[in-house]
Every structure is written in structure tokens, then in C-alpha cells.
């Protein structure tokens, strides 16, 4: 009976899952939903803090990250759970960096060149104040552009790896089929 049931091609077809979710399962699902909701709200808050930059760059960039994660999870089905988890953590980290950067800046920027020169005990020209402002802007642009780009590259390599694995599996199946045919038990 057991071999009759489980010796078939697809053992999953005979497995029955419980229809009603247990409390801990329901709690886990609610936690996941709350996490996603929290990330989306955090996304909107950070974008509104950054005003024009948020509207013109942070919302599109994070949208592209969500879409890339969804496409990767849809295409590379064997690893969809890890893809979703990594997507939400990368987005949360990206937004967290932007928020921390924005909240630390007001403490650093008011320091004058003379104060910095005294703190570092080196000669800093007065014009370096403008250079610092430019550097802060560059850091923001680099971090906010390179993080989504890096994430897209990661998604791309994941999809590529999945296709490679699938084609390798197809080759194995073909070789097995040839061997079966040579043995004469080809069905």
C-alpha cells in the first residue's frame, strides 16, 4: 500500500495539507505582512523627508528594486522565498542608510573649516567648506544610485544561474534518456 502510494512519480500529489492555519502559522503570516507594510510606510516616510529628491529618485529606485525582486522570485521559482526575504532586507537597509545619513548631516555640516582644522590639527583652507558640501552630495548620489544598481545585478545573476541550472538538468535528463534507450527499458 505504501509503495503503491509513494512509489509513484509525483509523491506530492498524495500529500494532504491541513486547510486551517494554526495560530502560530497565522501569527507568522501576519508578521510577514506587517513587515512588508512597515517597509512600504518607511519608504514613503524617507521619500517625503528627502522632498524633491525622494519623489524624483527614491520612489522610482525602490520601485525598480521591488519589481526586480518580484520578477526574480517569479522566474527563479526554486529560490523564491530567499529572493523575497533578501529583497525586503536590501530595501530596508537602503532606506535605513538614507534616513541615518539625513539625520547625521545636521550635526556635521555646521562645523566650520577652522573648527575642523583645530579638530584634526592640520591646515584646512576656508574654501574646503564648499568642498565638503559637494562631497556630501556626491556620497548621497553614489549610495542612492549604486545600491539599486547592485541589487539589479544580483537579481540578474540569480536569474542567469537559475537558467544555467535548468539547462544542466535538461542535459542530465537527455543523457539519462539515452542510457535508458541503450538498456532497452525506454518507456
Amino acid at each position, binding site marked *: 500500500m505504501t509503495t503503491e502510494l509513494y512509489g509513484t512519480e509525483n509523491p506530492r500529489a498524495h*500529500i494532504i*495539507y491541513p486547510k486551517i*492555519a494554526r495560530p502560530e502559522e497565522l501569527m507568522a503570516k501576519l508578521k*510577514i505582512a506587517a513587515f512588508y507594510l512597515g517597509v512600504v510606510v518607511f519608504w514613503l516616510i524617507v521619500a517625503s523627508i528627502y522632498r524633491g529628491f525622494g*519623489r524624483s529618485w527614491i*520612489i522610482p529606485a525602490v520601485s*525598480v528594486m*521591488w519589481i526586480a525582486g518580484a520578477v526574480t522570485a517569479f522566474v527563479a521559482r526554486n529560490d523564491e522565498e530567499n529572493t523575497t526575504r533578501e529583497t525586503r532586507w536590501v530595501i530596508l537597509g537602503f532606506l535605513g542608510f538614507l534616513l541615518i545619513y539625513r539625520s547625521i548631516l545636521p550635526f556635521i555640516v555646521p562645523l566650520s573649516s577652522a573648527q575642523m582644522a583645530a579638530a584634526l590639527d592640520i591646515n584646512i583652507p576656508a574654501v574646503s567648506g564648499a568642498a565638503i558640501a559637494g562631497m556630501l552630495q556626491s556620497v548621497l548620489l553614489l549610495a542612492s544610485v549604486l545600491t539599486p544598481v547592485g541589487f539589479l545585478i544580483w537579481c540578474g545573476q540569480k536569474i542567469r544561474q537559475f537558467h544555467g541550472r535548468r539547462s544542466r538538468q535538461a542535459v542530465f535528463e537527455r543523457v539519462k534518456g539515452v542510457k535508458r534507450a541503450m538498456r532497452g527499458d525506454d518507456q
Partner: protein
Amino acid sequence: MTISEILQSVLVFHVNAFYGLIFFFQANFFLLLGLPAAVYLAWVEIRAKSVLSADDKRRVT
């Protein structure tokens, strides 16, 4: 306050909220693309969670 006044205020409130949403999504157009993707990801993870926590010792993966 009559019933028609209450209905009118409810109508005005909802039309206002509706136009507010439209203007919001017009200003942040990419949200319309990003939010469904986020919902899809949440759905995938919730679905995976329900399979993993099913109380079935015979699960073969």
C-alpha cells in the same frame, strides 16, 4: 443637520479623498508599479510560509 446635509458632507469627503489619491499617485507615479510588486513578494513569502509550517511529516522536498 438634515440627512441630505450628512450625505452631502460624506460625498464631498469621499470625492476629496478620491482626488487626493489620484493626485498622490500622479505625483508619485512609480508607486503604482512598485506597490503591486511588493504585494506579490509578500504573497509569495506568505504562501511559502504556509507550506513550510504545514504539520505534515511526510513532506518531500
